[in-house]
Structures are given as C-alpha cells and as structure tokens.
C-alpha cells in the first residue's frame, strides 16, 4: 500500500456560458437573498460591465440595493470595513463581487465581517478561523486568469501595520461563480494575454507540483488544452465570444486545479517580483514559467511530457519521442510567449519589462525563498538556485 493521499474540494456552483448573468436573480432567490450589494472597482464600472449585471437582475424584479465601486487594486482593511458599514446601513443580505482578483478578495473579506460581526477584519486572519457558513456570495469575474472565483483564499493589506493579511477558509468560497463571455469581451490584448498565461501557469504548476492529484490533474489538463487552442485566436479576434468563454472557463478550471494542488517556484518568484518591482501577477507568471520548468525538469519530466498532448495536440505528441516530450512542452510554452510578444509585446524576460534592475534580483530571490508556494515545488530550491533561475529569466 502506498502513502498516496489527496484531498479535493470545490463546492462552487459554476454557471457558465451565454446569458449566464441572467441566472443571478434565480440563484439569489434560491438562497432567500433579496437585497444584494455589488462590490466592484471603477475600471469595471467605466467599461460598462455592471450594466448587464444590473439589467439581468432588474429584468427579474430584483433591485441591486447598493453598489460600491471604489475597490483599489490592492484592497485594504479600511476599505473592507467601510464596505461592511455600507452593507449594514443599507440592510443588504448578499454580495455580488464583479471584477478581478482585488474585487473578489474584497468581497470575500466583506462577507466575513458582515457574517461574523465586528469591524476588525484582522481578527479573522489565518487558516481555519471561520467556523460557520457566511452570507450568500456570488462572483462575476471580469478577467480570465486569477481563478479567485473558486479559491478559498483572500489577501487584504493591513495599512496600519504594512502587512498583507491572508484569510483561508472553505467558507470563503462563493456560492456561485458566473462565467459570462460578455464580461471579458472588452479586455485589452495585453491583459488578455497576461491573465491567460496566469491561468496557464496555475494549470501547469498544479499538474507538475507536489500536491498534484487525479482530480486536479483532470482540471489542469483541460484548462491547458482550452488556453492553447483559444488564446491566440482571441488575440487575433478579441470579439470572439466563444474563444473568450473558453479562456474564462479555462481560468476557472485552472483555479479549481491549483486550489486543490497548490503551485510552486513560478508563483514564489512571481509573488516576490510583484512585491519588489510591482509587476502585474500574470506578467510575472508568463515571465518565469519556462525557466522554472527548466529548473524542475528532471523531477517533473514525466508529467511535463504528458502536457505536450494538451499544449500541442495529438499529432505533435505522437510524433515526439517520449524522451523529448518534456523539452517539447517547454518549447511549446516558449512559442506561445513569442506569439504573444509579437501580438502585444508581453515581455518574455525581466529585462524586456523595463521595470526590473539586475540589482533587485538578489532581493527577489531571498523573498521567493520565504514564499509559501515554494514548499510545494517538486525540487528543493536554495538561494543560489533561485538566483540562477532569475539570471536566466533576466535576458
């Protein structure tokens, strides 16, 4: 008998496809919610993405009680407290987060306060603090990358202490994630590319890191196939709503995969680079993915080789000798990055970003070594290893 063991959990109802937004009123009513609050940011509102959500609810006779549209890119404890105050004042009974990672994380944190009580969100920081289900919570992602709609984690900055507070609980998972192609149709090309590469990294690391399991593998491979088949099509034809839906679904599937199997070195380096150089997360993922895979190559040769089928399709997979498939998978990812660079100048190296200096690499390496993701990387990463991957990713 082996010691093999895994856990897999995803109770989020996924509502995906054409006219998915129009299911929100029914889902809210099913949970006896009548006074929803929308939590979003100015960019989402300016892009006109709230209108179809509001129209879908109003058409069914469900009024949106209040809208908070000032979530900053890096949400804070003060913002969470303020939104919770408005929620209580307006006697809301449910939350709909519309946006990317920050709006969704803010929605999760607000839900803690309005369900558990109090004004100090820091009190609920950590793992397993929450013991009861929270208020009805729905998420409408407007990017196709973070997968936050299916993760049980939120990160909120405590401005006073200057630290990022993590919140982890299965009760943070939304009751439903609504994936509607209308919500990502107007995403600019470089954000489409970076967020899709974020999802690609989630899936690739989920499939190759230590906590991989048969169920997360199924989601990860399906996500990689969808991204490989649709990303360049969408880049060439941004109004391709079928392709947009494929990417949005891939992002959710990759989210389900990595939240059940964790990620590794790419994320450790990416989190550190984001903190030191303020580069967008998706861009960091795209930057580091091939270099981290090369570093891990001998430990992940078999699963990485399997991914060639989903990256390049059955003909290429069959024509590539088994012993060369892992390298071919890395080449396929490099090829995709080159194509994205050609279409929207998504940087492939740290130097190409123009926002990182060589002098910062040591600091990034040190920070990456303390990142939680590194624990699940299949190979033990030393400081010198991290430096060497960074040097390769430099130029």
């Amino acid at each position, binding site marked *: 008998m082996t010691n093999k*063991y895994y856990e897999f959990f995803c109770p989020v109802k996924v509502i995906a496809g054409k006219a998915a937004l129009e299911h929100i009123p029914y889902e809210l009513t099913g949970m006896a919610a009548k006074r929803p609050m929308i939590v979003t940011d100015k960019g989402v509102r300016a892009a006109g993405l709230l209108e179809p959500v509001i129209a879908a609810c109003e058409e069914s006779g469900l009024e949106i009680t209040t809208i908070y549209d000032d979530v900053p890119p890096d949400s804070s404890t003060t913002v969470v407290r303020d939104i919770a105050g408005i929620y209580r004042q307006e006697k809301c009974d449910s939350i709909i987060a519309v946006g990317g990672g920050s709006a969704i994380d803010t929605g999760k944190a607000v839900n803690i306060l309005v369900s558990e009580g109090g004004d100090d969100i820091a009190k609920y920081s950590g793992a397993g603090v929450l013991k009861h289900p929270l208020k009805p919570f729905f998420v409408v992602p407007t990017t196709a990358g973070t997968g936050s709609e299916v993760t049980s984690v939120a990160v909120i900055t405590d401005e006073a202490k200057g630290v990022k507070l993590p919140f982890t609980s299965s009760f943070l998972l939304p009751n439903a994630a609504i994936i509607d192609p209308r919500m990502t149709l107007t995403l600019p090309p470089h954000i489409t590319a970076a967020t899709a590469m974020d999802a690609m990294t989630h899936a690739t690391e989920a499939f190759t890191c230590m906590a991989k399991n048969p169920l997360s593998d199924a989601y990860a491979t399906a996500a990689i196939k969808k991204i490989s088949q649709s990303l360049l099509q969408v880049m060439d034809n941004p109004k391709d709503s079928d392709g947009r839906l494929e990417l949005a679904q891939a992002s959710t599937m990759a989210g389900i995969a990595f939240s059940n199997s964790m990620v590794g070195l790419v994320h450790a380096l990416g989190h550190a680079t984001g903190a030191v150089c303020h580069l967008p997360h998706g861009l960091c993922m795209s930057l580091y993915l091939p270099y981290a895979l090369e570093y891990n190559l001998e430990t992940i040769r078999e699963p990485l080789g399997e991914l060639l089928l989903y990256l390049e399709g059955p003909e290429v997979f069959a024509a590539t000798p088994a012993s060369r498939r892992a390298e071919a998978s890395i080449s396929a990812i490099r090829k995709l990055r080159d194509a994205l660079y050609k279409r929207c100048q998504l940087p492939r190296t740290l130097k190409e970003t123009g926002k990182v200096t060589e002098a910062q690499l040591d600091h990034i390496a040190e920070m990456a070594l*303390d990142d*939680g993701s*590194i*624990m699940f990387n299949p*190979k033990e990463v030393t400081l010198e290893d991290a430096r060497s991957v960074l040097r390769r990713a430099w130029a």
Partner: protein
Amino acid sequence: MLAKRIQPMVFQARRLYVELMFQVMGRALQAVSEVDEKVQNEARALPDGFLFEMMVMPDGSKLIVEHTGQGRFRYHGDKAPRPIDLSIQFKHIAHAFLVLSFQEKTSVAFANDRMLVDGDISYAVRMTRVLNRLESFILPKMVAERAVKEYPADLHLPEKLISAARIYLKVATNFVETVRA
C-alpha cells in the same frame, strides 16, 4: 481477535513514540541552533522571543521552541510561556507518526494536507528548512533521504558525523539536566 486485543497497545506505543520524538526534536532544534551556522542564519530572520510549536490536534503531544535571538533556539517542552506565534499542527496522531517515523517527508505531509499552519506562512517555510537541515544531520543518509525533499549535496560525511555527534551529545545532556531538575 488478537488484532483487536493488541490494538490499544499499538495506539499507546504510537502515542509514546510521537511524544518521545517531539522531545528529541525539540532538544535537537536547540542543539542544532548552537552548532550549525546555516540554521542560525535561517533562525535570525525570526523575531526575538518567537514561539514555534509542533503539535498533534486537538490537544495531543507538542514541542515548543523559542527563538531567543542571534539564531538560537530554546526548547520549552510542551508548555508555552506566552501565546504561540507559529503552530504546525498534525491533523491526527497517525499523520504525525508517518512523518516522525520517516515514512512520509515533511514536504509531502504538507502537500497531502496532513498538517495545518497557524501563523505566518513565510516563518513556517523557514522552520521547515530548519527541520530539514536538522534531519539531514541527525539521521543516517538513507533515512534522511526519506525525510527531506532533497538531501543537501554539500553535506559531506565528516561534517555530518561531527555535527551529529555534537547535536546528540547536547540532546543527551539536556535530557539528563531535565531529569535532574
């Protein structure tokens, strides 16, 4: 029938083994922080007075060590003088036994959700590196390879033997002092 009869004894033996291993590891953590520079460098990033706990849920065996500054640890047994800063908790004694009997690597136990981290995750990563370093020193290479993700390539036999001897001597001395006290 026989299996049913001896089961309580097996459970008791497992509990005692885990308790003993926690006592050895706690003392060994203190010892390795006095002996190894790499461990001291790792520990220096922890705040002075930082309390680290490893325990079996819900209220089983535990080890508590404190970072007293300059990269040094002090073993506190199973009693914490203050609230704990970082706790690594095994969900069940069976999971603790798997790890402490080197049937499952610490990193694999994390990946398999056998353990929970309560506290700053970056400190947990650091303490895991310290535990790996300790295990690489005090266990025979063949056993250590089962306990850690990757046996350090730069740890050669003479250094390992000398450090292990110093750690074991300090652990034994600490045990004797505890008994005398």
